[in-house]
C-alpha cells in the first residue's frame, strides 16, 4: 500500500483524518444537493462541479460514525478514484501537511469508531493522531452497490 507523504487534513466529529493529496481534485463549499431517489442513504445526491455531475457522499454516514450537520465550515472534498469523481462531505478541511513515512503505524482494529477496513494507517504527529483513509475502499463501487442492492430489496 502506498503511504501518502503529502496529505489533506480534515475533520469528522472530533477526529482528524488525512487523505493523499494526489487523490483530491479540489475542495469546494457545499452547494445545494439534488437528491437522487432510491439510492443508498450515505449518497446524498449530486451537485454540479463546473459542469460535471458529481455524486456526493456523507463521509460520516459512510464510515458509520453519525451524520453531518451542515455548517459554514462544511466542505466537500472532490476526489477522483478509478475514473469516478465523487464529493465527500466533511466537517471542515483545515490543512495540508507532510508526513514522514516512518511515523505511520498500521491500522488498529477500530479507531474513532471507524473500522480498520477503511484505514491505511495512523500517522503520529507531534500532539495528535491522524487517521489516513483508504479512499479506494471508501469509494469501493462493488461494496457500494452491494449496499445499494440490499436497500433496494428491502
Amino acid at each position, binding site marked *: 500500500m502506498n503511504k501518502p507523504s503529502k496529505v489533506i487534513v480534515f475533520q469528522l466529529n472530533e477526529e482528524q483524518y488525512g487523505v493523499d493529496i494526489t487523490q483530491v481534485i479540489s475542495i469546494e463549499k457545499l*452547494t*445545494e444537493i*439534488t*437528491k*437522487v*431517489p*432510491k*439510492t443508498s442513504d450515505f*449518497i446524498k445526491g*449530486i*451537485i*454540479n462541479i463546473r*459542469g460535471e*455531475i*458529481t*455524486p456526493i457522499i456523507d463521509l460520516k454516514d459512510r464510515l458509520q460514525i453519525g451524520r453531518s450537520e451542515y455548517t459554514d465550515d462544511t466542505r466537500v472534498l472532490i476526489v477522483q478514484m478509478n*475514473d*469516478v*469523481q*465523487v464529493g465527500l462531505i466533511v466537517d471542515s478541511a483545515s490543512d495540508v501537511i507532510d508526513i514522514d513515512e516512518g511515523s505511520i503505524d498500521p491500522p488498529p482494529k477500530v479507531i474513532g469508531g471507524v473500522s480498520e477496513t477503511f484505514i491505511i494507517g495512523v500517522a503520529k504527529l507531534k500532539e495528535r493522531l491522524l487517521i489516513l483513509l483508504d479512499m479506494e475502499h471508501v*469509494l469501493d*463501487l462493488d461494496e*457500494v*452497490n452491494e449496499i*445499494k442492492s440490499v436497500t*433496494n430489496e428491502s
Partner: protein
Amino acid sequence: METNQYIEVFLDESREHLQAVNDHLLELEKQPEDTSIVGEIFRSAHTLKGMAATMGFEDISSLTHKMENVLDLIRNDQLVVTTELIDITFNCLETLEEMVESIAEGGDGKKDVSDLVNQLEAIEKGEQPASKESENSSNTVETVTALEVDEYQKTVMDQAKEQGFQSFQVTVTLNEDCMLKQARVFMVFEVLEDLGEVIKTVPSVEELEEEQFDHHFSVLLLTKEEAEEIRSKVMKISEIKQVDLSPFSDRKIEKQENNQKEGTQKEKTQPEKSENNKQQSQKKQAQSKSIRVNIERIDRLMNLFEEVVIDRGRLEDISRKIGHNELIETVEHMSRVSKDMQNMMLTMRMVPIEQVFNRFPRMIRGLAKDLDKKIELEISGAETELDRTVIDEIGDPLVHLIRNSVDHGIESPQERSAKGKPEEGHLQLTAYHNGNHVYIEIEDDGAGINREKVESKAIKNGILTEEEAEKLTDEEVYPLIFSSGFSTAEQVSDISGRGVGLDVVKNTIESLGGQIFITSTPDQGSKFTIQLPLTLSILSAMLVNVQKETYAIPLSFIEETVMLKNDEKMFVNGQAVMDFRGKVVPLVSIQTIFEVPQNIEQNDKQDEAVVVVKKGDKLTGLVVDNFMGQKEVVLKSLGNYFKDVFAISGATILGDGSISLIIDPNALMKG
C-alpha cells in the same frame, strides 16, 4: 516500419472500397454484360491491393491480386460472368472483410486464402493463353511509358539547354516490397531537386503522393550533373531497385509517337488507362469537398458546446431577472446563433443510414440462397440521417430482425404459390424522419406472426397464464416475442431461432432511447417499426416541480399535460386513474415514487398537474406539483457511481447552476 498511424485511414478506405465492390457486384449480377461495372470493381480491388501491400497485409493483397486477374479477363471479354463466378467473388469479399475487421480489432489480418486463390486461379486458367497475352500487353505499355512534354515545358527545356543544363529522363523502380512508397518518392524528389530541377513526372505528382503507381515512376530532370552522379545518389536511398537514366530530347517524342502508331495494342490500352485516370481524378475532386474528422474530436466539440448550452440557459435566466433591454436583446441573439450552431453540430454527427443498409442486399442474397427462398429486397430512405452513435448500435438489431423476417416470415416458394402469393417474397426496408424521431420499418409479406404459437410458448415459459392469454389483444400478444428465451420457430436453424436475438434487439433499441412496435396480419406479413430519437445528448424536456425539486421529462414521451380537478380522479382497485379522452389512464405520483419529502404545506389543492406520457399505445399520467415550462437540456450521465437508478435516465444542469434529474418514463409505465 511504423505503419500504425496509417492503420485507421487504411481501415476506413478499405471498408469503403469493399463496400463499393459489394455494390457493384450486386449490380453486375443483374447486368452481367456491363463491363463498365467490372471496371469499377477492378479499380476498387486494385486500390485495395495497393493499400494492403503498403501496409504489409500480404494475404489481402495476394487475394485481391488474384481477383484482379479474373476481373481483368472479364473486362477484356475473355471470360463470361456466371453465377458461380459471382459467388466466388462474394466469398473473396467476405474473406477480405473478415481480414479487414480482424485488423481493426488489432489482429494481423492473416487468413488462409489459398482455397479462394486456387478457385480464382482455376477460373483464370480456363483462359490461360489469353490471360498471359493480356499481361504481356500491359507490361509493354508500362515500360514504354515515355514522357510527353507540352509547349511550356519544351521552352523551359530549351532555355535550360542554352544555360548548359542537360535534360534526363530518370526512371526509378522501387523494390516490390517497398512499404511506404510515398515516403521513398519524397526522398527521391529531395535528392533530385538538390541536383537540378524536376519539370515533369509521370504519373503526376498528385498520383505519386497518393501512391497511385505500381513500382516505378519517371521524372524529367534538368541538371548540370553527370548521369552517373545522379544514378549513384538516387541509389543511396534504400528500397530503390533500379534507376534508369536516358538523355531526353525532342527526337524521343517523335519516336514515341511512332511507337504508338505502330503498336495497335498500346493504342488500345492507353486511352483506356487515361480514361481511368480521368475518372479517378474526377472522383478525387468530389471527395476533396469533405474531410475525415475523428469522431472523438466531434464528441469533444459537442461536450464543450453542451457547456455553452448550459451557460446560455443561465444567461437567459439572468437577463430576464435584470430586465435590461440591450442585455436581453444580445442574449436572445446569442441564443438564436447558438441554436443554429447546435443544429450544425448535430448534423455533423449525422450519418446516412445507408451505411447500415448497404450490407443487407448481400445478406439477403446469401440467406435466400441458403434457405432456398426467393426474396426481393426493397430499400427506401437510405439517405435518412441518424446520430453516429445510433448508427453504430442499430446494425445488429436490424440484422436480427431481417434474418427473422427472412427465416420465419417469408415462406418457401412452394408454400407461397400454394397460398396464391407470388413466389418471390418481398421485404421492404424503409427509413424516414418524423418530428424528433427517425423510424425504421422492416416489412415482409410472409406468413405473419402465429398468435397461437406465441401464446402457447409464452404459457410454457411462464410469461402468461392461459386465462390472461385469452384476454389479450393481438397487439398485446405480439410483443411477447421480444421476451428472452423466445423462439416460435419449430426448427432451430443457424440463421435464427435460438431465441437469444429478439430480446437483445429490444434491449439495444431501448438503451438508445427508442421503441419497437409490431403489426402483423396472418398470411399477409408483419411489420416491425423501430422508433429512434434523432439525437442523444441534447433533448427538449418539460421541467416540472415536485415539492422543492425540479425534474425534467423528455418531450418525446409527453402526449399532453392536463390540470386534473380533484373530483376527476378515480380509483380502480386502489389504483388512481383518470379519464383522458375516453381512455382510462393510470396515475403515478412522482412524489410517492421518488419518496420526495413533503416540504410545502398543501392547502387543500384544487387541481393536480398531470403529465400524460406515452409508450406505444400505453398512456400513463405522472402527477407533479407544477409545470415550469419547456427547455432544451443537455443529458448528462449520472456516472458510474450510480448504477441503474430507478426511472432516472440522467441529469441536467439548469440555468441557475442547479441540477435536475431527467425522468425515464419508460420505467414508470403501468401496464
